């Protein structure tokens, strides 16, 4: 099989995503008051409604409707004032009523879009980036107007930017979970018997469907990451791909570059991590290219991504479209959203990642990519905002002309590098550590003043994360504050030069390697706290000056 880069030069991949998100932050299910809890004992959060007992009726959860309206507003969707629930009829034991309550042709949220910035290596998969003619930046960062063409990649300083249409976001209920006992592959076929856990049954689920505007696996991955950070910022779901509260299926087809006709698509399932989404799509693109280049045709089918074998396998061939016999749910009246309700939701919208990144970039001069990375992480950006607030409120930093701007980037660096590495290796959230916003501000200030070395800063940062406390106090206690007082260091250097006149001679005679010796002596004299850059500078000046 050819590699992705090669395939994408010949072929254009057309990708659409279907993203299912459980509204896990709600207290109760979609149509009953059962608790939503992952990992509870099987069938302990069930009632006549979610068990689909004969005679039970659904009552919609208003908080879930609020969540989907928030999702729609955050993704530039048009909120539909009047929409209906429908019944999607199909038989499967995890569906307690043998129909799923979902939405019909009109979903709560229709016709939205998200912009996507693809930077660095991720941008390399895209071969058809066009120069930015208009240089219009107003459509970026959550701007109101929809000024970019869908799917077109426009060059930016860091890579390119593109625009992904969102067809709809609709509300539905989740099914239960089945465990197939016996058999080899955990499937129902070949198993001895199957167990059903209805705890998940009736969990409110929102399904976002994109237009087929994605062109590379990286774009798909970045889109899902962006959507996840938006949902996390909205607080509507924990978006755990591991626990299945965020699930993504992909539709992909290929066409020859230059062609506008869509090819036959396959539907990909089981891509339960960002990496799997990327790798699954990449494999499938290469597989389809091979089929097509060998003169074959792609079968319209559902395929299963096997991460362990790094391949997709056919699940079932779709000869005819499934007939779900969709019809309006007679137990639920058409849903009328009032303007007041929608406006209340709009007022509740938090600052979204794009706007946050723009603020970090515009107001605090944080590097664009760092700003985006920080803004995408709800916990880190909240911590970063705390730190910025701390600087504004702290009188001690008045010594710096623009303390926020001066300290923001160093704090961003510490958070994105050392702190993220620490969090990942210990599987923690920043809130689980002892690190405070005040402490990281002190530490950044110490670094900016060059009071400690970067190596020392990292050591102190780790101590702050583990044990808490103040950066100043730790530095004082350890006595590691760097000596950056030039006159103090000059005195030390004068003493050393006077102590080793023959070495000075040798240096001036051309043995420049002796610089290390002088620095070492100076560090010894300052008990390791001399500012190395400053020591170097003064030493060179003195040694070179005397020579003249």
């Amino acid at each position, binding site marked *: 099989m050819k590699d992705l880069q090669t395939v994408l030069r010949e072929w254009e991949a057309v990708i659409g995503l279907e993203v299912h998100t459980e509204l896990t932050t709600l207290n109760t299910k979609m149509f009953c008051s059962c608790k939503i809890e992952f990992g509870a004992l099987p069938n302990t959060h069930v009632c*006549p409604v979610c068990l*689909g*007992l*004969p*005679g*039970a*009726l*659904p*009552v*919609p959860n208003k908080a879930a409707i609020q969540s989907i309206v928030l999702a729609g507003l955050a993704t530039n969707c048009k909120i539909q004032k009047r929409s209906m629930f429908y*019944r999607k*009829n199909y*038989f499967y*034991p995890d569906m*307690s*009523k*043998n*129909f799923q309550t979902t939405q019909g042709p009109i979903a709560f949220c229709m016709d939205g879009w998200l912009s996507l910035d693809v930077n660095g290596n991720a941008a390399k998969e895209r071969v058809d980036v066009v120069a930015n003619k208009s240089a219009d930046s107003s459509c970026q960062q959550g701007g109101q107007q929809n000024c970019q063409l869908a799917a077109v990649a426009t060059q930016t300083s860091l890579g390119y930017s593109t625009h992904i249409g969102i067809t709809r976001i609709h509300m539905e209920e989740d099914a239960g979970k089945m465990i197939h006992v016996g058999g080899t592959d955990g499937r*129902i*076929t070949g198993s001895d018997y199957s167990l*059903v856990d209805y705890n998940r049954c009736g969990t409110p689920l929102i399904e976002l469907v994109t237009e087929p505007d994605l062109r590379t696996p990286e774009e798909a991955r970045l889109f899902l990451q962006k959507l996840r950070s938006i949902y996390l910022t909205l607080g509507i779901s924990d978006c755990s791909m591991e626990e299945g509260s965020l699930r993504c299926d992909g539709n992909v087809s290929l066409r020859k570059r230059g062609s506008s006709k869509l090819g036959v698509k396959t539907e990909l399932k089981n891509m339960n991590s960002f990496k799997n989404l990327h790798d699954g799509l990449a494999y499938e693109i290469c597989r389809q290219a091979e089929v097509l280049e060998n003169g074959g045709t792609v079968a319209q089918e559902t395929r299963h991504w096997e991460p362990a074998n790094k391949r997709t396998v056919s699940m079932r061939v779709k000869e005819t*479209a499934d*007939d779900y*016999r*969709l*019809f309006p749910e*007679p*137990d*639920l*009246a058409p849903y009328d959203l009032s303007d007041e309700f929608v406006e209340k939701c709009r007022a509740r919208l938090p600052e979204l990642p794009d706007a946050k990144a723009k603020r970090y970039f515009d107001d605090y001069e944080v590097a664009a990519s760092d700003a985006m990375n920080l803004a995408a992480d709800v916990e880190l950006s909240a911590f970063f905002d705390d730190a910025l607030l701390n600087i504004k409120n702290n009188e001690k930093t008045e010594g710096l002309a623009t303390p926020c701007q001066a300290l923001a980037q160093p704090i961003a660096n510490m958070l994105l590098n050392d702190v993220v590495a620490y969090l990942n290796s210990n599987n923690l959230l920043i809130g689980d550590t002892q690190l405070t916003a005040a402490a990281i501000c002190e530490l950044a200030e110490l670094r900016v003043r060059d009071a400690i070395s970067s190596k020392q800063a990292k050591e102190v940062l780790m101590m702050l994360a583990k044990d808490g406390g103040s950066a100043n106090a730790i530095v004082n206690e350890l006595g590691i504050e760097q000596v950056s007082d030039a006159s103090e260091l000059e005195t030390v250097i004068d003493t050393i030069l006077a102590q080793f006149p023959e070495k000075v001679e040798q240096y001036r005679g051309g043995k420049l390697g002796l610089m290390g010796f002088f620095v070492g002596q100076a560090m010894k004299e300052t008990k390791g706290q001399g500012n190395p850059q400053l020591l170097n500078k003064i030493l060179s000046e003195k040694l070179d000056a005397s020579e003249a």
Partner: protein
Amino acid sequence: MLRSEYTNLSVVDIREGLNAGNFSAKEIADASLSCIDALDAGVVDAFLSTTPMLAYEAAEKLDTNSAKSAQVKAGILAGVPIAFKDNMNLMGTHTTCASKMLADYISPYTATCVAKTLAAGAIPMGKLNMDEFAFGSSTETSAFKLTRNPWDLERVPGGSSGGSVAAVASGMVTVALGSDTGGSIRQPAAFCGVVGFKPTYGVVSRYGVVAFGSSLDQVGPIGRSVADVAITTDAICGRDPLDCTSQDVNPGYYNSVLAAQQKGIKGMKIGVVPEYLEAPGIEREVVKALKGAIANLQELGAQIVDVSLPNAQAALAAYYVIGPCEAFSNLSRFDSVRYGNKNDVVQTAATDLGSRYEQARAHGFGPEAIRRIMLGSYLLSSGVYNTYYYPAQQVRTLITKDYQQAFEQVDVILAPVSPRTAFKFGEVGDPTSMYLSDIFTIPINIAGNGGLSLPVGLGEDSGLPVAVQIIGPQFGDYAIMRAAAALEQCYPDIRRIAPLMDSLNASANGLKSPERGVA
């Protein structure tokens, strides 16, 4: 010993007698159970299961001196023996819907309407036979037994709430709850000579009542007088947080009855649809009964106004699209995974999930249920949906408008209930003829209005009960009660308990059944 002197009492008489200490709730429960013993098995066969334990528990609660007892005793149904159509969940009882599919199903919860009657002090006597999943108009599609019309044991009681009306008409219970999707309360009430009321859609919670056609189903009471039916409606009506199609309506039905009994209905405008008197297949005695009712209403000072319901003739067609579609979906859950899985054929014949579903459903459902499920499955399939389901909904809107316009001119509409009186078992063989027996009741479900079936005596030709239907505007069921209560007074001599009781009473204890009908 038969104690029909208690079970024949009215709701008000029972409550007052109980509170006055004239008799105990246990005596009432005993009386009802002895009636059931004497009249049910092998005679009327109205009950699918009886609940003596629950009945005595409820009676004990009423008879014990306690604060709780005082509260229940004050309930508007205090001491009233009641029974429920077997599509209503009552915790701990079998709820079979008269289907093999649910033969072993025991309710783990209680329907709101059932709970409300019990909270109002009623004594639960058991669960009543019906057409399977309420599909039928004769109770002949029950998978378990035939229920007989107490007026003529060779005839059907009507359906689908056949067990409910038969139990009331034979005096085994005072009131019963039924459900009405296309006439399933009103038509059997007419066949058995009792009062049956389908309130406006949304007046009574459907929570816990096994759904047939969700947008058409409505729970209602069956009793031997308009007053009994009105009081029972007062007990079960109102908004239920568990049914979002239920509405915030005030009890006041019995007050409407009292007001009409005291003040009459002079000046009330009664609509009549002239075409109904010449409807094809309508029996002479039904027309005669209707004309008699019109004359009586005129005598009471009501004004008779001709109204037109031009689209009502399409109601049957719309009903046999919408009903089966909703039923198909509502009944999907009965697939042998959790219901109907004790069938040996299913266990042995199924080789995979799909064939298990097929086997279980083929064996678990009767022919009428299968007919409606297949019809609904076809009507909803892609390509067909737009030809049937969508136009049916449009027709529904038109019919609803017809009624709205008619009720701009009149307070209630008087109509037949069924084109004919009770027929013999097997007499109506083909499904279409059976469907046609509901032509006067179905439009009301399509429009969502309320309708009441009021007995007006025995047919001259058949000697069987004949009834008229009083239809009201949406959520204007109080007007129905007023008209019905006033009209009822024009028939002081008709009996609401089938003569069947007399012979049994006489043979059992030599007592003459007190003529307790309703004044």
